[in-house]
């Protein structure tokens, strides 16, 4: 069901952990739906993401998208990190099963939430960044047929 890349990032997740005194922390998702992602960013004075770590409660795809998202933003400027969309995460993982697409949305949202936290702490505005939703839901649920 999962691509080799997803399996690799699930089995050997990159950047698992916490950052002490992180520049920004973002937590998204909810336990009810079974996914919670938390991303820690260490951003230097030049606005470069020096380090990025994550913790995730969720399925294989949730862990893999978190891992890939941290890889994609590490070493990047804030501007570049803003361009890491869910599509970019999915492509980098060679795709996700349709029911797991929401995991990649969650990863994008987690990065945005961490950037939002950073911007708030530093009293700055990041172009294109909106206040993160507390909760992520994947579109409309299919009405079951009987």
């Amino acid at each position, binding site marked *: 069901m999962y691509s080799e890349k997803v*399996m690799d990032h*699930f*089995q050997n*997740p990159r950047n*698992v952990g*916490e950052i002490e005194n992180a520049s920004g922390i973002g*937590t998204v998702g909810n*336990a*009810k*739906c*079974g*996914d*919670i*992602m*938390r991303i820690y960013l260490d951003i230097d004075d030049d606005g470069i993401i020096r380090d990025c770590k994550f*913790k*995730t*409660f*969720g*399925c*294989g*795809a*949730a*862990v893999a998208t978190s891992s890939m998202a941290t890889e994609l933003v590490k070493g990047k400027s804030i501007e570049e990190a803003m361009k890491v969309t869910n599509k970019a995460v999915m492509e980098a993982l060679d795709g996700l099963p349709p*029911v797991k697409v929401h995991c990649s949305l969650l990863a994008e949202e987690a990065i945005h939430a961490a950037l939002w936290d950073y911007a708030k702490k530093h009293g700055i505005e990041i172009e294109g960044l909106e206040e993160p939703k507390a909760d992520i839901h*994947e579109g409309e*649920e299919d009405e*079951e047929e*009987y």
Partner: protein
Amino acid sequence: MEQPIYLDNAATTKTAPEVVEAMLPYFTEHYGNPSSIYSIGSAAKEAVTQAREKIAATLGARTNEIYFTGGGSEADNWALVATAEAYAAKGKHIITSKIEHHAVLHTCKYLEKRGYEVTYVDVDENGILKLEDLKRAIRPDTILISVMFANNEIGTVQPVREIGVIAREHGILFHTDAVQAYAHLPIDVEDMKIDMLSASGHKFNGPKGIGFLYIRTGIKIRSFLHGGQQERGRRAGTENVPGIVGIGRAAELAFSKLQENGAKEKMLRDHLIKRIGEEVPYCRLNGDAKRRLANNVNYSFRFIEGESLLIMLDMKGICASSGSACTSGSLDPSHVLLAIGLPHETAHGSLRLTVSAANTMEEMDRVVDAVKEIVGRLREMSPLYEDFIKKQK
């Protein structure tokens, strides 16, 4: 890699070699249609009759009360829909439980959309039906009570006889989905006042795609598949002769070792329950500790998600199952775990291990070691665990 350890016997079981052997001639030699007049047809017909006799004997039923179906789901669908239609003049109210298999629950939803009313009775925190609630749910227009014999996820065995007595006292039909219980526990349809019972071949080392519905003589029930006169005109279609031979042989084998296999499974089960409970912190055994299928272990581990656990177990060659949303294809975790009162996040972190008598104690120890390691690893990755530990400090 070492041999895989199969602990998903509630999903399906390995077909016994004796069963395969019994079935083969009905593909190659005795391939005739049981409805035909010539001898290869009558050999097939004779085999179907023998299988029916064997199964009837295991339940204390009459031979003509066993109807072969394409499996457990078909039997459940048939029992509910056909009874609902046949007894509509008496009433349109059905009672079931909140923890039924989807074969029953979704059939109830189907009937609700067609003008029937269904009451879903609560279970307690161990998954046992609340008998007082059942009695209160009964109305003059109640035509059917359908409660599963044993639950497929948490293994809880229902007080079937008590339910049968209540139904009989009120003149209501009683159907039980015994897919997980048949050929694992002794069942007597007379003593337990069961009017209809569903079972499935592949849950007891028989083939897939074959099951049966026991229907007590005298019950009005409509034909489900229309066509020929097979199954006394109630279930048309040329009989799945190899499947029927297979389920008959599987039942015979299972009942000849019912006590022996049950005792072995119970020993393996109790070892898993004990070691996991003692060695993995923040876990909860789901289902009743005593009224429980001999092969079922179901634990919830806080702060982790079930699918991750399953994939990691699979990488270690261990086949298991979970009630997490990610394994159900929806966003909601198991309705059974929610019905016994688990919070959503705990329900997401559940693990079902269902043993067979073919498993060994060494395998159980390997599984516990793997579960301990993986749960620890996933918790290290979990923001919920991080928050929990920080709060403890």
